[in-house]
């Protein structure tokens, strides 16, 4: 009973949690963090089970209300979406665990149940986007995710965060508009909204109405890259991720920008027929934008004085890596970018969480004011350093593995230039991450006399994230073997 309905339950559980927090939050504000913990914890179990099911029996199909496609809404969970679902639920759970210890200091106690409600509805929308096979359903949840994400930025209510949030809202609405326009075009030429049915009709539609299909591809590209913050459409990201509360920054940088990439992969590889991939100028535009993003994101990150702003610009560069892997259009490239989705989710949420706790404990945000912090607060700074080293791509850590596969993908495509891009950008990453690590551990004394103790939730989530950084460095074969059949099917191997 429950097993058959898992694809629906993974969306229903966080949605139910959302409204339960809102209802109980009117009287019992304290209950909201418990509800969030329980519902994200349940999600981890459900998505884990679902991922195992997909590995065992192949793709899982779910028709809402028993209505078959193309009339009903269909969820299709293949290995790629199951992989991403598991990332969303586990990182979301860890962020809630972290937030249970620190959120009161960043968000006014009066609105804390609203915060958890927004957080859960965001998780629900991310899950539905990655599981849905219906393009209009995807659009609806895209809108939910952008409204919830913008609200999570604005929640502190100060001038900076509201400005950032409005900017984010306007640009992501622009992205949604482009995506909706693309859906309208696709629906006009194919007559379907279900991705599988669109895929079957698209070759015919392409020959009849090539301009409409090309226009909608362009709109999908623009709409989703605005939302995923690929350079030069990244302008909203540094402000939004830099001025949000810690837990919001972690989920926005770690998960939200990735979900749009998953949609992009779905549309490009599952809907568009493989022989048309080379007829559209997709490879060129993706590679150009991602290369520029990698370099300019890193260079701008280097100039930042504020640690959270620096991390936010680093996300621009990392999104560039992920799109680079997609743009290479090779097996290893796509594997690399999917692995980087996992690894960057772990690294960046860990970096944002540890930076946030350091800011909370010391009140220091400037990159050059972190002298000696590592000796006062070892755990957050060790987590930060692990994340930083992994970003640079030091071998035993997980960041190295995904860069390795991106490099292999570039070589498979015969494009040695992008291997050089990867090497130079790793060097650039080192230039802005390593000084912080060196300052924190070997710099002069911080002048902090009595260090405060960390709460259990904070320590626990940082420890788990640090361990998984190392774990996925050594055992990268686990996600690799999980993804390999799905990716080779996409390339028809």
């Amino acid at each position, binding site marked *: *009973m*429950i097993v*058959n*309905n898992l694809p*629906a*339950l993974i969306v*229903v559980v966080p*949605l*139910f949690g*959302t*409204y*339960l927090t*809102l*209802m109980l939050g*009117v009287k019992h504000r304290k209950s909201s963090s418990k509800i969030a913990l329980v519902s994200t914890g349940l999600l981890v179990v459900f998505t884990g089970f679902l991922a195992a099911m997909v590995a065992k029996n192949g793709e899982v199909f*779910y*028709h*809402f*209300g*028993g209505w078959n496609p193309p009339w009903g809404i269909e969820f299709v969970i293949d290995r790629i979406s199951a992989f991403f679902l598991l990332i969303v639920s586990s990182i979301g759970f860890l962020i809630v665990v972290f937030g249970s210890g620190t959120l009161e200091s960043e968000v006014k106690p009066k609105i804390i149940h609203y915060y958890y409600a927004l957080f859960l509805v965001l998780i629900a929308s991310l899950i539905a986007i990655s599981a849905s096979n219906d393009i209009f359903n995807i659009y609806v949840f895209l809108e939910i995710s952008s409204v919830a994400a913008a609200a999570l930025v604005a929640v502190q209510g100060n001038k900076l965060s509201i400005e950032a949030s409005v900017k984010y809202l306007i640009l992501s609405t622009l992205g949604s508009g482009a995506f909706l326009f693309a859906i309208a075009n696709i629906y006009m030429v194919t007559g379907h909204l279900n991705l599988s049915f669109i895929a079957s009709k698209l070759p015919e539609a392409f020959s009849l109405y090539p301009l409409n299909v090309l226009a909608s591809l362009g709109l999908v590209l623009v709409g989703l890259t605005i939302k995923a913050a690929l350079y030069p459409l990244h302008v909203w990201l540094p402000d939004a991720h830099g001025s949000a509360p810690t837990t919001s920054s972690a989920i926005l940088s770690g998960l939200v920008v990735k979900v749009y990439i998953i949609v992009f992969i779905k549309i490009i590889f599952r809907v568009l027929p493989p022989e048309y991939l080379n007829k559209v100028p997709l490879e060129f535009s993706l590679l150009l934008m991602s290369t520029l993003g990698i370099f300019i994101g890193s260079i701008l990150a280097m100039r930042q004085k504020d640690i959270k702003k620096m991390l936010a610009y680093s996300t621009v560069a990392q999104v560039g890596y992920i799109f680079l892997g997609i743009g290479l259009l090779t097996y290893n490239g796509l594997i690399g970018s999917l692995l980087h989705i996992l690894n960057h989710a772990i690294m960046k949420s860990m970096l944002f969480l540890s930076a946030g706790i350091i800011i909370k404990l010391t009140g220091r945000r400037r990159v050059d004011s972190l002298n000696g912090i590592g000796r006062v607060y070892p755990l957050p700074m060790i987590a930060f350093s692990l994340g930083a080293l992994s970003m640079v791509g030091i071998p035993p850590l997980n960041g190295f593995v995904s860069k390795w596969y991106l490099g292999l993908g570039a070589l498979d495509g015969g494009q040695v230039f992008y291997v050089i891009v990867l090497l130079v950008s790793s060097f650039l990453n080192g230039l802005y991450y390593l000084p912080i690590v060196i300052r924190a551990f070997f710099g002069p004394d911080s002048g902090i006399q009595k260090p405060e103790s960390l709460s259990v939730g904070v320590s626990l989530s940082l420890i788990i994230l640090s361990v998984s950084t190392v774990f996925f460095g050594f055992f990268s074969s686990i996600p690799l073997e999980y993804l390999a059949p799905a990716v080779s099917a996409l390339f028809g191997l």
Partner: protein
Amino acid sequence: MRNIIVRVIARVIIPFIQLYGFYVVFHGHLSPGGGFAGGTIIAASLILYVLAFGLVAEEKRVPERIAQIIESLGAIVYVVIGLVGVLVGAQFLGNKIAGFPLGVPGRILSSGSILILTIAIGFKVASTMITLFNHLIEDEKEG
């Protein structure tokens, strides 16, 4: 807005607006409209009440706390009705396959779970609209 004409007219037409709102909600499965449209109409009557009699009087009729609870309750009812399908072994949001009686087409008590869902949406939308409006007015007062 303390105008006697506005107050008297509002007092006369508010019941009719609400009745029409409930009509639209309860005929969601039969005619154009439904939960969202009907809920908005009901909320419009309450907004008219605020405009004519002020926020304090409205707060007595529909306290903000109650509005918030109804808002969440509407969504929870929706989810629970959806879960009935899961519990009986069909799919989420199943209607006939989940054992809801479909009734005679054209009657108000027909269409299985759709009517219940429409009513839940109606309550949710009405209370959401009224809370949104109250928040806007409160901000104006503070500023």
